């Protein structure tokens, strides 16, 4: 080994040795610093994890109540999909597709005791819908439709005036004003956009937390009867085993020669991306503030440390230590503090995640859990370490460059 290499090795080893000794000298201070960095880590992770969790919940809710994994819609020039039964047969032959449910949507107005509200009426086959979405399970009161129902209707909660005194009128402004004061078991009159009016018995009220709350539901058979339509649909919802393979199945469906515009749930989730991106900007700002706090804290810790050790830095340099040894010593301390803080932060974040998995946050869009993604952990890990090195560098560099005589005399 050359003298130069030996000297570098000596500098690095001594810096690590002194850093470790100093860290464990005052365990209480070390614990406090580590705890502080751990909380900063949690602070950086927490809001972003909730943002991910919220995105996931919104996507799941959307898949489970609106879009399913795939939806086949009429092409640009068409109003309806044709040959729905044949399409369903083709879909059922593709392995990986678990079910499909055709919808036929119509515009209509619903009247009850002189009050009218305009809405979309969705015609569906309840037994098929159960396999594709969770809408049939989202009943707030009454029951969902059955295949044999003809004069029954299920209303979204937004269409109905709220009877619960401790809840507001759903917060939907104009909808709330026109909402019908109807209850399960009463009759409403639906006037479709073709002019046909029919009286329906309200069988249930849906509370899905999303789009279905604005709709009314009848059976496909009933809509076909009103419009005298056969084997047509405005969309066919398709359920897959795995939501992440939606793109692959989109291509597979298109290869089967099925006519229609096949959209994945990701295509429909653009609005969610926009919402979470907006949330991301807010959490990003909070993250930067959190990061600045970490950086400032580490800089202060290193600065105080170098001030306390002023005389010993002088001695160390006098007995032959290079500036780089002093610099490395303080940077190593900053990094070790950060590493311990990050490890504790990961443990705390896991505890928080476990807590919320048992006690999720209940929101109008569903239950939200923080979702800790590995890439987020790695990014936060890297960011805190970089912040530690950058913020610790200036005070450490100042310490390394101190004049030996002045340091020894504590000037």
């Amino acid at each position, binding site marked *: *080994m050359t003298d130069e*290499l*030996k*000297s*570098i*090795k*000596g*500098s690095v*080893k*001594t810096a690590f*040795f*002194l850093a470790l*000794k*100093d860290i*464990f*000298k005052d365990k209480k201070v070390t614990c406090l610093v580590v705890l502080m960095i751990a909380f900063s880590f949690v602070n950086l992770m927490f809001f972003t994890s909730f943002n991910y969790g919220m995105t996931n919940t919104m996507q799941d809710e959307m898949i489970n109540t609106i879009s399913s994994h795939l939806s086949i819609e009429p092409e640009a020039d068409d109003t309806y999909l044709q040959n729905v039964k044949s399409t369903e047969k083709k879909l059922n032959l593709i392995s990986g597709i678990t079910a499909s449910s055709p919808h036929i949507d119509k515009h209509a107005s619903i009247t009850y005791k002189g009050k009218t509200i305009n809405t979309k009426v969705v015609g569906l086959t309840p037994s098929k819908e159960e396999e594709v979405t969770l809408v049939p399970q989202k009943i707030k009161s009454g029951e969902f439709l059955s295949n044999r129902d003809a004069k029954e209707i299920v209303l979204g909660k937004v269409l109905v005036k709220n009877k619960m005194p401790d809840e507001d009128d759903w917060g939907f402004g104009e909808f709330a004003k026109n909402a019908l004061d109807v209850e399960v078991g009463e009759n409403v009159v639906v006037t479709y956009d073709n002019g046909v009016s029919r009286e329906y018995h309200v069988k249930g009220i849906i509370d899905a937390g999303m789009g279905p709350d604005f709709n009314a539901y009848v059976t496909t058979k009933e809509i076909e009867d009103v419009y005298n339509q056969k084997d047509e649909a405005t969309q066919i919802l398709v359920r897959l085993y795995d939501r992440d393979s939606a793109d692959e199945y989109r291509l597979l469906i298109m290869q089967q020669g099925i006519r229609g515009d096949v959209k994945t749930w990701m295509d429909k989730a653009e609005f969610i991306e926009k919402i979470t991106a907006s949330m991301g900007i807010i959490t990003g700002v909070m993250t930067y503030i959190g990061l600045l706090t970490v950086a400032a804290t580490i800089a202060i810790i290193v600065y105080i440390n170098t001030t306390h050790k002023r*005389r*010993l830095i002088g*001695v*160390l*340099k*006098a*007995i*032959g*230590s*290079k500036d780089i*040894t002093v610099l490395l010593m303080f940077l190593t301390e900053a990094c070790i503090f950060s590493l311990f803080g990050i490890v504790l932060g990961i443990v705390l974040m896991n505890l928080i995640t476990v807590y919320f998995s048992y006690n999720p946050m209940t929101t109008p869009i569903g239950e939200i859990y923080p979702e800790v993604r590995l890439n987020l952990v790695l990014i936060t890990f890297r960011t805190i370490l970089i912040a530690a090195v950058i913020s610790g560098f200036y005070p450490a560099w100042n310490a390394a460059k101190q004049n*030996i*005589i002045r340091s*020894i005399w504590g000037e």
Partner: protein
Amino acid sequence: MDDGFIRTESLKKTYLMGKVEVSALRGVDITVHGGEFVALMGPSGSGKSTMLNQVGLLDTPSSGSIYIDNENTSAMKENKRVELRLNKFGFIFQFFSLFMELSTLENVMLPMMLSGEPKKECKDRAIELLDIVELGDRQNHMPSELSGGQQQRVAIARSLMNRPKLILADEPTANLDSNASVEIIELFKKLNRETGVTLLMVTHEEELGKLADRIIWLRDGKIDVEKQFVSLETEEIRVINPISA
């Protein structure tokens, strides 16, 4: 011709205190031969510590030259100065300059660790030196568990780790009682005698200075010629002309 292990020529050091220039050294010429034990003495403000710092390469002179082992240090780069401090010099300060978070053994090992030597060799050498300074049984003690005299002996052991040619001691007994002070100086003499290491020690205690081979007196940043001659004439203490010795 022996030019001396340490030789200074017209060494000057000027400090700025606010806007006022203060001359700490005003052209000092000294020679210290290899293996000598020399005491630098003088009243407060005479420049003795400044002189030691210049020779120990802890500071740079305003003008003049310092030769160590016939090498002019004025032209040396910082890396080379650091290397000299690490491998050829040993330092002892008046305050107890130990790292409180390190054990006695670890404090002594430090200079050799900085040189990049393997841990085992560092440990063996440190134990050997702690035995020499009679603290072999205190190697795992923390500095706070040692008396002032013991801490200073640890500092002496540390200064010897890299087998230096020169030990620079800045008032090493200033914070010790008289018994401990004599013990430290006797230890210096023993090391000087047994290892041949050159010793340059600043002290303001004449009794301790007398124990050195010779004394160089400073006053107002210059060699105190009058005192040298008085001393020579009276032979009260052994003082040799610092330049021609």
